[in-house]
C-alpha cells in the first residue's frame, strides 16, 4: 500500500517534470505532451482505483501492531532511513516557495502578501529550527508520515478520476483555446500549464494522505501557489489581480495553519493528524488549533469572507476552474474542516463554523440567481455547496459527517462535468451566457444532454446532491434546528437558478443549426467518463456509503450512532423514482415522430410573422421575439449580499479566534 500511495503522490510530479522539460512548438511536442499526459492520467487512475479496491500488498501486511490509529486508518512508513534527507528536502521546497511568494509580493507591491509570507515563514522557520536543534532533533519525527483511511480513499478516487479527466480534457481544450480567435494575445505556455496541473494533482494526493501535519502544510502551500500561477495564466491585468487575491486569501489561511501546528506541538507534543483526532475528547487543549485549522479550511474552501478568490478564478481557462472547483483546492479546504469535525462538534467553534457555512450556502445560492454568466453561476453554486459541506463539518454529528462526505463525492463529479460542458459550449458558441445556450439540446445534443445530467445531479430528486441535501437537513434538524432555516431557504434558491438554466437548454425557437464535431477525443473521454461517474454515483450511492463512508464515520469517536441514516424504505423509493426519471429520456428517444400531434406556431397575440420568430409590434413594425431569464437583480444585489455576508462572517470568525486566544492565554 505504501508503494501505491507514493505512486499517487510522485507519479504526477514526475509527469510534471517531464512536461516542464518539454519545450518548443509544433506537432512533435504536441504529440509527446499528449502521450505524457495520457500516461500520467492512466497511472493515477489505475493506482487510485487499486487503492480503493484494497490492492497493493493487502491491508493486513502493512498494518503492523501499534500503528493502527483509528478503526480504519492505516499508517504508512515512508523511507524511514532517509528521514533527515526528506526533512531537509521539505525545508528546501518551503524556502523556495516562500522566496518566490516574497518576490511576487514585492514585484506587485502587495505588501499584505509580503507580511503574511514573512510571518508564516518566520514562524515555521523558527519552529523547525528550535525543534530540530534546540529541542533535541528528534521531536518532529513522526512514526507515520502518511496514512490511508476510507475518507482518504474517497478523496483519492475523486482526485484521480475527476482530476485525471480534467487533464485529458485540457489537452483538446487548450489547443482550441490558443487556436481560437478569442485568446490571440495570450502567450501559449502550455508546458507550464500542464506542469502545474500535474503538480497540483500530486500535491492534492499528498495532502489527502498526509498524517504528518508538516507534510500536510507543505502540500497545502503547494496547492496555494499552483492555484496562484494557474489563475494568472492569461497574464491579463484582471487575471493578475485575481491571482494575487487568491494568493493573499490562501496565505492568510496558511498562516492560521502554521500557528495551529506550532500551538498543537507546544501543547500536546503532537504533530500528527491522527494523533490529534485521538485526543479529540480533550477539547480544551485541542479547540484552538482545531479552530485555526477550520479557519484555514474555510479560506481555502472560499467561504464567505473569502469567496471572492474563487469567483475571480474563473478568468483562468476552464480546466483550471474545473480543477479548482471540483477535485482539488476547495475540496482540500472542506476535507480539513470535515477532519476537524470530531473535535469541534458540539462546541462554540463548531457552531460558528456551521453558521459560516450556512450563511455562505444561503448567500451563494441567492447570488447564483443574479448571475447570467454560466461560469459565474457554477462558481456561486460551488461556493454554496461547499458552504453546505462546511456546515456539516461544523455540526459534526455522525449523520452530518456522513452527509458531508457524500456531498463531496456528488459535487465533485457533477460540478466538474458542468464546467467541462460550459468550456466546450464557450468554444463553440463563443459565449457562456446562460441565455445564449437556448436550444443547446438541439444544437449540441451530446453536450446539452450531459449538461442536463450534470444539473440533475446537482439538485434534482432523486439524484446525488439532493440525497445529500436531504441527509444534511435531517442531520441539522437533529443537531440544531435553528440552522435548518439557512438550509431550507438556500436550497429553494438553488432550485430557481438550476431550473431556469435547464429550461433554457430545452427551449427551442425556430430551427437551430446542429453544430458538427462537438468534442475532441480527450474531451469526449473525460466528459463521457464523468457523465457515467455522475450516473453511477447516483445509482450506487447506497453501496458507496456502505463500503466507504459508513466505515469511516463508524471509526470516528461518536457515542450516539443513529439507527439508520436514510432508511432502507426511502432508498428503495429513491431507486424506483430514478427508474421512472430514466424513462423520460428513453421515451424521448423512442417516441414516434409525429405522434398524432399537429405542430403550430406559438401564440404571439395572433401577430406572428415568419412563423414563431417575429411578430408585428404595436407600432406596426416587425419585431423579433426574444426571451431572457429572470435574474431578480432589482431584488437581490450580489454586491450587497456579499458585503453583508462577508462582514458578518468576518466578525464571527474574528470573534471566535479572539475569544479562543484569550482563553488560551489564561
Amino acid at each position, binding site marked *: 500500500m505504501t508503494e501505491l500511495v507514493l505512486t499517487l503522490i510522485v507519479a504526477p510530479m514526475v509527469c510534471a517534470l517531464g512536461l516542464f522539460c518539454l519545450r518548443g512548438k509544433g506537432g512533435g511536442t504536441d504529440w509527446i505532451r499528449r502521450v505524457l499526459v495520457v500516461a500520467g492520467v492512466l497511472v493515477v487512475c489505475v493506482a487510485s482505483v487499486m487503492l480503493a479496491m484494497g490492492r497493493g500488498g493487502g491491508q493486513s501486511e502493512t498494518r503492523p501492531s501499534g500503528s493502527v490509529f483509528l478503526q480504519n486508518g492505516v499508517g504508512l512508513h515512508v523511507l524511514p532511513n532517509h528521514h533527515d534527507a526528506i526533512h531537509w528536502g521539505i525545508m528546501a521546497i518551503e524556502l523556495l516557495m516562500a522566496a518566490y511568494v516574497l518576490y511576487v509580493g514585492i514585484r506587485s507591491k502587495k505588501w499584505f502578501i509580503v507580511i503574511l509570507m514573512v510571518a508564516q515563514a518566520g514562524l515555521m522557520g523558527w519552529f523547525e529550527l528550535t525543534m530540530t536543534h534546540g529541542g533535541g532533533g528528534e521531536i518532529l519525527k513522526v512514526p507515520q508520515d502518511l496514512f490511508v483511511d476510507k475518507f482518504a480513499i474517497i478523496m483519492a478516487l475523486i482526485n484521480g478520476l475527476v482530476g485525471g479527466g480534467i487533464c485529458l480534457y485540457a489537452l483538446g481544450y487548450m489547443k482550441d483555446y490558443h487556436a481560437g480567435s478569442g485568446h490571440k494575445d495570450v502567450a501559449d505556455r502550455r508546458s507550464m500549464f500542464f506542469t502545474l496541473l500535474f503538480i497540483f494533482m500530486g500535491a492534492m494526493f499528498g495532502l489527502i494522505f498526509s498524517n504528518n501535519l508538516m507534510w500536510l502544510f507543505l502540500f497545502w502551500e503547494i496547492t496555494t501557489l499552483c492555484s496562484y500561477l494557474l489563475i494568472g495564466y492569461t497574464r491579463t491585468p484582471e487575471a493578475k489581480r485575481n491571482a494575487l487575491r487568491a494568493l493573499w486569501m490562501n496565505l492568510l489561511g496558511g498562516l492560521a495553519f502554521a500557528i495551529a501546528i506550532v500551538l498543537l506541538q507546544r501543547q500536546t507534543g503532537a504533530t500528527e493528524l491522527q494523533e490529534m483526532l485521538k485526543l479529540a475528547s480533550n477539547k480544551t487543549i485541542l479547540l484552538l488549533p482545531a479552530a485555526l485549522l477550520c479557519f484555514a479550511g474555510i479560506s481555502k474552501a472560499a467561504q464567505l469572507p473569502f469567496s471572492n478568490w474563487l469567483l475571480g478564478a474563473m478568468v483562468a481557462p476552464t480546466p483550471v476552474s474545473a480543477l479548482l472547483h471540483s477535485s482539488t483546492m476547495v475540496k482540500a479546504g472542506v476535507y480539513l474542516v470535515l477532519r476537524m469535525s470530531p473535535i469541534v462538534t458540539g462546541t462554540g467553534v463548531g457552531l460558528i463554523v456551521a453558521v459560516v457555512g450556512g450563511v455562505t450556502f444561503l448567500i451563494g445560492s441567492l447570488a447564483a440567481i443574479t448571475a447570467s454568466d454560466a461560469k459565474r453561476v457554477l462558481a456561486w453554486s460551488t461556493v454554496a455547496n461547499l458552504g453546505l459541506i462546511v456546515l456539516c463539518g461544523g455540526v459534526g454529528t455522525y449523520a452530518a459527517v456522513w452527509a458531508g462526505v457524500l456531498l463531496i463525492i456528488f459535487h465533485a463529479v457533477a460540478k466538474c462535468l458542468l464546467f467541462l460542458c460550459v468550456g466546450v459550449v464557450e468554444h463553440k458558441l463563443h459565449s457562456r451566457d446562460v441565455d445564449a445556450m437556448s436550444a443547446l439540446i438541439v444544437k449540441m445534443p451530446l453536450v446539452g444532454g450531459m449538461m442536463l445530467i450534470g444539473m440533475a445531479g446537482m439538485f434534482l430528486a432523486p439524484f446525488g446532491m439532493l440525497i445529500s441535501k436531504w441527509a444534511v437537513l435531517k442531520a441539522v434538524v437533529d443537531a440544531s434546528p*435553528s440552522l435548518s*432555516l439557512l438550509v*431550507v431557504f438556500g436550497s429553494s434558491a438553488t432550485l430557481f437558478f438550476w431550473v431556469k438554466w*435547464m*429550461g433554457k437548454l430545452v*427551449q427551442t425557437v425556430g430551427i437551430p443549426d446542429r453544430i458538427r464535431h462537438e468534442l475532441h477525443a480527450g474531451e469526449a473521454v473525460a466528459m463521457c467518463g464523468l457523465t457515467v461517474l455522475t450516473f453511477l454515483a447516483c445509482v450506487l450511492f447506497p453501496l458507496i456509503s456502505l463500503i466507504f463512508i459508513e466505515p469511516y464515520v463508524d471509526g470516528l469517536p461518536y457515542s450516539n450512532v443513529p439507527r439508520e441514516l436514510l432508511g432502507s424504505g*426511502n432508498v428503495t423509493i429513491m431507486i424506483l423514482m430514478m427508474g421512472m426519471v430514466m424513462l423520460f429520456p428513453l421515451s424521448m428517444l423512442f417516441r414516434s415522430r409525429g*405522434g398524432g*400531434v399537429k*405542430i403550430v406556431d406559438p401564440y404571439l397575440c395572433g401577430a406572428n410573422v415568419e412563423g414563431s420568430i417575429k411578430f408585428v409590434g404595436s407600432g406596426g413594425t416587425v419585431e423579433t421575439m426574444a426571451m431572457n431569464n429572470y435574474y431578480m437583480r432589482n431584488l437581490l444585489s450580489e454586491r450587497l449580499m456579499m458585503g453583508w455576508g462577508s462582514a458578518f462572517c468576518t466578525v464571527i470568525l474574528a470573534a471566535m479566534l479572539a475569544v479562543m486566544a484569550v482563553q488560551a492565554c489564561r
Partner: protein
Amino acid sequence: MSINSWISLILYVLAAPFIGGALTGFDRWLSARMQARRGPSILQSFYDVRKLWQKQNLVVRSSQNFYVVFFLIFVIFTGGLFFAGVDLLMVVFALTLAAIFFVLAAYKTSSPYSFVGAERELMQMMAYEPMVLLTAIGMYMVTKSFQVDAIARHSGLLVLVLPGVFLGFLFTLVIKFRKSPFDLSASHHAHQELVRGMTTEFSGRTLALIEIAHWYETVFLLGWVYLFFASLPWLGVLAALAVFLLMILVDNAFARLKWHALKSAWVVAAVLGFGNILILSAFKA
C-alpha cells in the same frame, strides 16, 4: 409498508381524480355564486376534461407533451407516497420534481407567454418551498418522525403546537393552488399580460392531463392539511374542507399581486414557520 398503507395508496390513486374534480367543480360553482353568477354544474370539470380529450392536439414543439405526461406521473407518485405514509421530506422532493417537469414543459413550448409563466412558476416554487420544508421539520420536531403514518398516529393535535407553521402552510397553499393573489404563473382566467401562462401552448389531451394532475395535487395538499388534525379524523376532514373554502374566498377577495409580492412568502416562512420551530426547540431544551 403495511397493508393499510397499500389500501390508502390504491384508494388515493383511484379516488383522488373524482374527489379533486368534484372539488374543482365546487370551486367554480361557489366562485360564481360569490360573483352573483349562476355558475356551471359541479360536474363541469369532468365535462371539460371529456371534451378536451376529443380535441385535436396542437403543439409548438413535438416533444413538449412528454414533459406533461411525466408531470402527471410524478404528481400521482407524490400523492401516492404521501398516502402510503412514507417520509415527508421525500414527498416534498417528489413534489418538487413533478413541478419541475411542468415548468420544463412550459419552457419546451418556447412561447413567450408560457416562458413568462414558467419563470414565474419557478419564482413561486422558490417562494413556497422553504415553508413546505419547515412544515415537515415542524411536524418532525413534535412527533419525532418524518414518516407520514407515524405523524398521523401522533396522539396530540398538531395544529395546537404548530399554529405558526399551520398559518404559514396555509399561505403557501394559496400559492400552490395558484389562487389570487398568487395566480401569477397560470391563471385560471385568461389575462392580457399572461394569456394562459404556462399552459398557453397546451391543448387537447395534454391540457386534460394537466387538469387531472391538478385534481390529484388538490387532494394531496388537502391531505396534508388533514395531517395537522390527524388525531381527530372528523375534525381533520372538516378542516381540510374549511381550508378549501378559505382558498376560494381568498381567490375571490383578492386581486392578483405583482411578483415582487412573493417576498412576503419568505417573510411568512421565516416569521411564522421558523418562529414556531424556534419556540418548539426552546421548549425542548
